[in-house]
């Protein structure tokens, strides 16, 4: 029979059922072998299992976060340090134009920096550790979806990054951050930050799988992020930079991201920055996903 797990109290009634009912059940497809439908359904089923496995891996990632709270704590303490340094040390010397206080200007930069660093380092180091400990090998011998190992982790890291953004927001408010943006603006800003987190997690995944040594991943993952975050509109207006640097700073993705998040948070018009930033995220996501999947395949076959 099709229904295998029945509670005992149901069984008595079941036995008295007229035979037609059972056939009706069969007609609805519950007892019939998939047969012709198998072909069409195999794609669906594959997607279902990929999602199932992804959730198992994501759950593992979230559990890890609760077991190693240091990771989250240090990441947020570091960002909080940046807030204090820029707000109180450099802030007085930086002029961002009339009508905007420096702390209001600064926080968008902090959000983007926190998310970008957290995503690249978190995912990259995590995957490199999985490789080193042989966990990736074990996952690869299981009858599970291969994509799920990467997707589950990047999704768990997305949740972790969401928490650090909230913490940073609270830190910002504590030091005088008073955003004027409406609900829609904030929704768009948070959406873009999550998008950034997800796509940079995949960058981290690609780096982690290519470099493999957790300590090396830590530096390889972050070293290139410094010029991108500092030579941008994150902490100072680009207009104060030398001409050649302005050309870079104005057109690179971090600036677009910061500009969009800042405009939305402060209730200003983001102009084209929002779309350009989103396009950058999607582009980075596509390329790093391709690379990460390729490196994942190679990671285990190389050894």
């Amino acid at each position, binding site marked *: 029979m099709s229904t295998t797990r029945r509670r005992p109290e149901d069984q008595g009634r079941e036995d008295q059922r007229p035979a037609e009912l059972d056939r009706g059940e069969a007609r609805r497809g519950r007892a019939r072998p998939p047969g012709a439908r198998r072909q069409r359904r195999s794609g669906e089923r594959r997607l279902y299992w990929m999602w199932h496995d992804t959730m*198992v891996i994501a759950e593992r990632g979230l559990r890890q976060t609760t077991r190693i709270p240091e990771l989250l704590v240090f990441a947020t303490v570091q960002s909080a340090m940046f807030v204090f340094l820029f707000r109180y040390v450099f802030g007085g010397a930086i002029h961002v134009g009339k009508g905007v206080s420096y702390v209001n200007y600064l926080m968008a930069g902090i959000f983007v920096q926190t998310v970008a660093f957290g995503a690249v380092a978190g995912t990259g180091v995590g995957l490199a550790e999985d490789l080193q400990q042989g966990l990736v090998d074990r996952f*690869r*011998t299981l009858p599970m979806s291969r994509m799920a190992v990467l997707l589950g982790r990047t999704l768990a890291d997305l949740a972790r990054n969401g928490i650090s953004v909230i913490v940073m927001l609270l830190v910002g408010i504590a030091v005088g951050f008073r955003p004027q943006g409406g609900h829609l603006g904030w929704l768009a800003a948070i959406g873009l930050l999550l998008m950034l987190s997800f796509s940079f997690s995949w960058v981290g995944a690609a780096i982690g799988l290519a470099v493999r040594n957790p300590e090396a991943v830590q530096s390889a993952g972050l070293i290139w992020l410094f010029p991108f975050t500092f030579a941008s509109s994150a902490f100072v207006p680009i207009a104060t930079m030398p001409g050649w640097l302005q050309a870079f700073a104005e057109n690179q993705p971090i600036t677009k991201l910061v500009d969009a998040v800042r405009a939305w948070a402060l209730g200003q018009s983001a102009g084209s920055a929002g779309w350009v930033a989103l396009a950058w995220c999607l582009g980075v996501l596509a390329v790093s996903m391709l690379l990460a999947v390729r490196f994942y395949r190679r990671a285990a076959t190389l050894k």
Partner: protein
Amino acid sequence: MSALDVARPAILVEGLCKRFGETQALDGLNLRAPAGTVLGLLGPNGAGKTTAVRILTTLLLPDKGRAQVAGLDVVRRAGRLRAQIGLTGQYAAVDEFLTGRENLEMFGRLYRLPRRRARARADELLGRFDLEGAATRVVKTYSGGMRRRLDLAASLIVSPPVLFLDEPTTGLDPRSRLGMWELIEELVAGGTTLLLTTQYLDEADRLADRIAVIDSGRVIAEGTSDELKRLVGGERIELTVTSHDSLDRAREVLGRHIPQGESVQVEEGARRVSAPVEGGAGRLVDVVRELDAAEVALDDLALRRPTLDDVFLSLTGHEAEVDAGEGKL
């Protein structure tokens, strides 16, 4: 290996080759293990044991040759095969930050058991592997032996018909090692086909039905542990006398204890006399008494059991070369 052998082997490897850059890790490897038996893969670091296991568990593609596990080709039917095998590698591949139960539950769900069954199975395995007390502890706090047990448990979640254990006791203390052996023996008694790689002759001796000795990616000898021991020559008594004058008397004493057809070897320069013997420690005591009676003074005396080095020495003429650089292959 006759053509009449109708039982389909659980593991069948023919002419497997794999090269990593300059290193020929596998060079025409042939293996065969009938269902329900234990095949021991014995060899030093870098011999190609792990490479073979990685190919058989779908982690690595071979350059050449063919391999079937549970009747499934490891390359073309890799996806299906993964539901039929379990692997426990050289290092415990479990998540350090999860508890023992969470680890097993996670792997169970990745084997696609429903959540409730994955949990039940986890509890069952924790009990069987004597990890109940540590079930809710984070694995980071486990001892080496506990980790290995958890790792082994993780590869048994769906009771796979074919199990691969890659150096399951390397780095374990003697007591944990014995514990692992007992667990493995229980498994095998349940009918699991097992491929076991090891650097230790005693481990292969105790656990394996047949042993394949591999060197430089190829099988250089294959047989039961008794057959291999016969090849190597079993136990030997080795003694070093204090003065050259007593060499002859020592030779005479040892001569009374050797099995028929064997001979006593004398190295004059080193004042060393050695001979194959049977009967172990009891025989050694007899020899000591008689040497004493013959007034032979000794610098050194030992009963040597054959080691992997002896197997290699007698099979290849060179000692097992331990190449640390290839240890992870």
